[in-house]
């Protein structure tokens, strides 16, 4: 009787296992996700900016492997520009006498992770239910990478308490959205991806301008430490 019992594989797991995967894209995507996680958890915006640039570079490699070289280099370019702006804005805190040089940390990580996990699972199930006209290994792997980066950016947005890293997280989500768009099997997807990339650059510049204005006026948790950060 026992011998008749066969271990069953969940159909969903089997479905995902049978999808085509490109290991090179997944490795570059994992590197990008690692750099992004480092960037979004650093409390020094300068180091966060460096890691954000590296995350953009690794995402560029993903897009190059996808055959979207122009979009890839433009992505790395935008990430570097936003990182420069973030580091320069962070320097404003130096002008405020007595301001803490370390940005406040994040909060409610578990809640944010749980929320984003539920959201990501819902989107992934919906995406897997669609019978896409093109489903090659590179597109699937790049889409998964972009989705993971977008989720990381969303976690960063939900857990930030100061402007500069909030902007980095929002820009990461926008860059991931551009990369995700480029994997769609439509002829206009490339054009939309560039528009989203321009949107990401504007999000970064606009957000950093607001952060700089609040820092210069002495507002925000960076200048005024929250109660739990105060000695």
């Amino acid at each position, binding site marked *: 009787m026992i011998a008749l019992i066969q271990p069953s594989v969940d159909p969903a797991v089997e479905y995902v296992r049978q999808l085509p995967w490109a290991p*090179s*894209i997944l490795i*570059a995507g994992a590197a990008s996700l690692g750099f992004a996680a480092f960037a979004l958890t650093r409390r*020094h*915006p*300068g*180091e966060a*900016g*460096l890691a954000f*640039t*590296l995350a953009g*570079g690794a995402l*560029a*490699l*993903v897009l*190059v*492997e996808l*055959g979207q*070289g*122009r*979009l890839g*280099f*433009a992505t*790395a*370019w*935008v990430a*570097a*520009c*936003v*990182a*420069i*702006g973030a*580091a*320069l*804005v*962070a*320097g*404003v805190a*130096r*002008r405020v006498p007595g301001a803490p040089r370390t940005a406040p940390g994040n909060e409610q990580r578990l809640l944010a992770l749980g929320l984003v996990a539920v959201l990501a699972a819902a989107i992934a199930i919906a995406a897997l239910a669609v019978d896409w006209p093109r489903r090659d290994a*590179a597109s699937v792997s790049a889409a998964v990478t972009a989705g993971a980066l977008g989720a990381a950016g969303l976690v960063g947005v939900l857990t930030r308490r100061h402007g500069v890293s909030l902007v980095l997280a929002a820009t990461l989500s926008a860059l991931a959205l551009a990369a995700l768009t480029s994997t769609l099997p439509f*002829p206009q997807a*490339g*054009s939309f991806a*560039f528009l989203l*990339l*321009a949107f990401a*650059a*504007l999000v*970064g*510049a606009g957000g*950093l*301008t607001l952060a*700089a204005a609040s820092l*210069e006026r002495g507002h925000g948790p960076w200048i005024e430490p929250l109660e739990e950060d105060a000695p």
Partner: protein
Amino acid sequence: MDPYLGPVAGALLAAFAAGIALGVVRLRRLSLEWWRRRASRAGAAALNSAADAPDADGPLDLAAAPPVFGALALTALVALLGVAVAARGEFAAVRAATPPPAAVPALPPSWTAFAAQASGLVLVAGLAFLLTLGAALAVSLLDRAVARLLARFVPGERPVAPDGELDVPALVAAAGREQGPGEPFGVGLASIVLIAATVFAMASLVVALGGGPSPVPAVAVALLVVPVAYAAAAERASRPEAARLRRDAAVRQLAVAPLWGAGLVFAPSALALAALALAGALALPGASAQPGAFMLPWGGDAAEPSPVVRALSRVAHGAWIAILAALPFVAVAGPVTSIVDGVALAARVLLALVAFLAARAMVRHFVLPHAAVA
């Protein structure tokens, strides 16, 4: 990604070497004492002359720092310019109805193919790393020779650029020198990223010479990483004076990004060459010893107290001069198929390098004479 695996491997190798030199990467299980003893013997004399940086800790007006909103506007402009240039190429490709490059069918995995690919990666990475160091040393030697030649014909001028010297004993001595308290982790990370971006750009040139894709976009992105590193180092600097100098350098490098971006777009026209030459003077790694967003660097971070950081910035400075001099020729020439082609290309690059250094020396001695005594 295949054509960029070599540059990525070169950047990782450079980052590892720079991390060891800076002390960010610690090889606790390996004794490097023999290397340190050898370095201290070989480069003691050179170190003594290079160790004491000019004192830049004088009073600086921090309130006169570059306005942040202007810098942000510049950042947005540069970002949108990059997107527009890339999108223009994309739309042009769509209009021309050129199909995307077909994927190369993957060969069945075999140990022979893996070994061939791995050895190719190691070769490109090692070659790019050595070329970067060699280019920096060659530029330093040429700079010194040009300055001496100029001093021979123009009496009373200073023969050698004081902050542009770079030689092997100084590099070895800097790598073996004790660091002391040092700077924060972020400053070391910025130096590592700076040198890795330099080797990445050099490796892109190597790959292009071997038949790879055009090096222009990779070099452009790597050059934009230079202000990222300086801005991050400014943010993490422990001394306000160092922060000011690094921030000035980042703003200067960012401000000329549209100029060299246009040069890269229109290469290899005469306008592009002029833009690249100007960029070579203005966008190079290096922070001046004096505050000011447009104080030109003549050879790395002159006011940096750490000898290793100073040496790394000088290597990056010299190597970027060589990269910018070689880029138009490599982009036009394409893959090198014979030794004659390679020698002709090297001669052209050398000529461009000497012309650029001579023009820079003339500017330094005649147009900006106060900079010669920095």
